[in-house]
């Protein structure tokens, strides 16, 4: 079995595969412990109702569907929410140092888009702590050789047999620059999100979406690409936008700006039912309105205050220490004393490779799990559901891969030719990139890509801007052919893999942009002022993009709303309870 990606989803998959008796080859561009999951801060949702608030997995399910503006297929989301308590308990057994109550139980805090304390957390570096726990379990399997790691390897493509089934992968060794091929009964992509397409985001350097884009170009369908989450509170920076977790508001932090010489808590005024804990798309649009429409950014700058200075510093250190340190180190001010200056930043892709409920992509034998697939978050992800979906999806995809391998007809095993051909094709692409010459600059092209995508394909989308962006994307791809790499060496050449990534990012950027152009409505994170309402009759549909040489071809699929009837989504008033259809046959949670 091959797992590509060593973040939470990939490690969860590798662990479950090894436990199921498979031998696993785990690919990652970085030592897996350094994957982007470390950046997740606030926590992981599980409705265990340890605060006596009457929370339930059903309520978690309803909040998630409602928060996602009804775009997610409901049955897998229900399964995820039902599995959440078991997943958090499993992590607890693995030794994750979750914060505790006085009785020694797991502590839970509030997060956006819910009224319950549902988020388990380890300080404000929960993602780091969860990935370490999974990294440790995978290392345990590494000792007897059940898992072998191929770190410093970049996924280039899948290898398909004559019947179109995925039978392995082609990878680039980032040290020797050799192209290698590897066979597998099944391949699980767990390669994360595409934040780098937007230039600066809260994502890590390796979150380019390149692997998913490569699979897409080999026939895997991409789902709901246009749904990109912009997190309301990040610290602007030249190299990246550093996240200031929603947990700051979960612990009582308030967002404000100055109006008429006084603090104005606009989220609390506009959304009295949820206040500072409205979902991210809502908070982000509110901040945009304050800054750009009302001209009330702090000191005339694109910034508002995120304020925790009224909270006891001892509690802050215990529950939010990790993020406050980030603010202190990078901004040089103490948020225990002064309000933080923040602004929205691209954060997460709800869209990703289309998968069926068991995580198989449209290419048989190729699975996807985690942020690189589209399944759990609809049009907007609720905070602290990402870590959950990564682990749930990783484990479920591993179960599917094991079942797939069992039923595999190996008589039609791919001829070696499929591997030789794919290797030759990828080596030729490398040679083409290394031979590029001309007056263009690939770093400049990446910068312009980020600026265009951020300006036109994030918070506020207009059709003329989207059209112009798509034209630009085509132009960028053309310019890239004339952008020499500046390093043609064959030893730890970092420009070559970035150039390959950038080729793929431009392809995926078109899927995102054209998906947004076509969707004439507003839903979750996708907002068009010219089409301000959600339009269920026309657009309660999953976007499915297929690659063609002429660009993405789109088709649409009905959303499975069999469990909760779609209703208007509002956060200024209390949420009406969802009409829940009788439960379908309960799927085994994490089992």
């Amino acid at each position, binding site marked *: 079995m091959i797992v590509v990606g060593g973040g939470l989803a990939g490690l969860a998959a590798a662990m479950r595969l090894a436990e199921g008796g498979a031998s696993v080859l785990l690919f990652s561009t970085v030592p897996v412990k*350094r994957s982007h999951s470390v950046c997740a801060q606030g926590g992981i949702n599980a409705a265990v109702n340890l605060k006596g608030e009457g929370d339930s997995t059903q309520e978690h399910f309803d909040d998630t569907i409602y928060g996602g503006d009804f775009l997610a297929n409901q049955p897998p989301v229900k399964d995820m929410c039902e599995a959440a308590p078991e997943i958090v*308990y*499993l992590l607890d057994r693995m030794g994750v*140092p979750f914060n505790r109550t006085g009785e020694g139980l797991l502590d839970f805090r509030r997060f956006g888009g819910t009224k319950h304390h549902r988020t388990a957390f380890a300080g404000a570096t929960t993602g780091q702590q969860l990935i370490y726990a999974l990294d440790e379990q995978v290392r345990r399997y590494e000792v007897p050789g059940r898992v072998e790691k191929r770190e410093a390897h970049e996924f280039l493509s899948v290898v398909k047999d004559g019947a179109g089934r995925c039978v392995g992968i082609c990878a680039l060794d980032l040290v020797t620059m050799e192209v290698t091929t590897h066979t597998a009964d099944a391949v699980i992509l767990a390669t994360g999100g595409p934040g780098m397409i937007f230039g600066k985001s809260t994502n890590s350097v390796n979150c380019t979406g390149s692997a998913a884009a490569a699979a897409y170009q080999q026939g895997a369908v991409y789902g709901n690409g246009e749904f990109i989450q912009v997190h309301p509170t990040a610290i602007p920076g030249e190299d990246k936008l550093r996240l200031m977790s929603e947990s700051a508001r979960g612990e009582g932090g308030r967002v404000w700006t100055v109006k008429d010489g006084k603090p104005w808590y606009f989220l609390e005024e506009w959304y009295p039912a949820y206040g500072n804990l409205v979902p991210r798309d809502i908070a982000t649009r509110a901040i945009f309105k304050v800054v750009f429409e009302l001209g009330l950014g702090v000191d005339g700058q694109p910034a508002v205050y995120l304020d925790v200075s009224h909270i006891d510093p001892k509690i802050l250190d215990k529950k939010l220490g990790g993020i406050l340190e980030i603010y202190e180190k990078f901004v040089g001010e103490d948020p225990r004393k002064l309000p933080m200056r923040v602004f929205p930043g691209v954060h997460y892709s709800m869209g990703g490779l289309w998968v069926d409920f068991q995580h198989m992509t449209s290419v048989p034998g190729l699975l996807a799990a985690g942020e690189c697939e589209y399944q759990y978050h609809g049009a907007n992800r609720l905070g602290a559901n990402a870590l959950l979906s990564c682990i749930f999806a990783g484990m479920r995809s591993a179960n599917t891969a094991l079942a797939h391998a069992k039923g595999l007809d190996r008589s039609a095993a791919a001829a070696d030719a499929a591997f030789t051909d794919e290797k030759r094709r990828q080596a030729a692409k490398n040679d083409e990139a290394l031979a590029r010459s001309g007056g263009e600059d690939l770093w400049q092209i990446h910068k312009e890509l980020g600026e265009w995508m951020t300006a036109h394909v994030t918070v506020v989308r207009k059709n003329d801007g989207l059209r112009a962006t798509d034209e630009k994307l085509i132009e960028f791809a053309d310019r890239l052919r004339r952008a020499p790499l500046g390093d043609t060496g064959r030893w*730890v050449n970092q420009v070559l893999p970035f150039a390959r990534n950038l080729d793929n990012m431009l392809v995926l950027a078109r899927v995102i942009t054209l998906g947004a152009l076509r969707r004439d409505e507003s839903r979750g994170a996708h907002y068009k002022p010219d089409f301000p309402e959600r339009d269920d009759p026309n657009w309660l549909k999953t976007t499915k993009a297929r690659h063609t040489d002429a660009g993405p071809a789109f088709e649409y699929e009905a959303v499975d709303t069999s469990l909760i009837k779609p209703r208007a989504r509002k956060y200024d008033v209390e949420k009406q309870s969802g009409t829940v259809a009788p439960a379908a046959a309960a799927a085994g*949670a994490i089992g």
Partner: protein
Amino acid sequence: MSNARPHVTVRILRQDAPEATPRWEEFRTPYRPALNVITVLRDIRQNPVTVDGVRTTPPVWESNCLEEVCGACSMVINGKARQSCSALVDHLPDPIVLQPMATFPVVRDLIVDRSRMFDALKRVMAWIPIDGTYSLGPGPRASEETQEVRYKLSTCMTCGVCLEVCPQVTRESLFVGAAALSQARLFNTHPTGAMKKSERLRALMGPGGLADCGNSQNCVAACPKGIPLTTSIADLNREGTILAIRDLLTG
């Protein structure tokens, strides 16, 4: 402290490959407020021309999260081993001097091979021996006090700074170093992890183990996460002594 300057001067110790001879190269890049070393390196990468006007290859370095939680971007900056993402130009002298960490074999330029650290985690069995990933209910209860101790130890990002500053860790020595030792303590403090406590301690009795610590205390001073590494080592020493006496008595 603000160190605004007309431009940023950077000296980098370059090395093309593990066996190649290192060389210094100097660059000048545009100054902007709030730059960090990563951004300066990116400027150089985009325009890799030395102060002498010679076009060279773009320097290479490791980085990922850029917010000091992944541990990738460690290097020696003006003589101090640290993360380059949180090294702000406004707080650094001119020129900025960048070198790879010397304890580890250089792969290329500022990239070093830290695989010995991950191998050490295997040696100390840095994991909780769970029975399986199936549903077995919650883990053991823990006090807030224990959680705080364990959380701090668990923020170790295997960045290598503690090994770089340790006089006992060299490319030749077997000493596992403070990071792995502190991880052994982390797992010994968990009720389930403690079931393997003796094995962990015994694994640290032999060559390259606890006895190799020279108590210079450099590690604890250099750790970017403020992990009480020397407290961990003292704790393991104490536990190790108890175990040794017990082994002696029960022969």
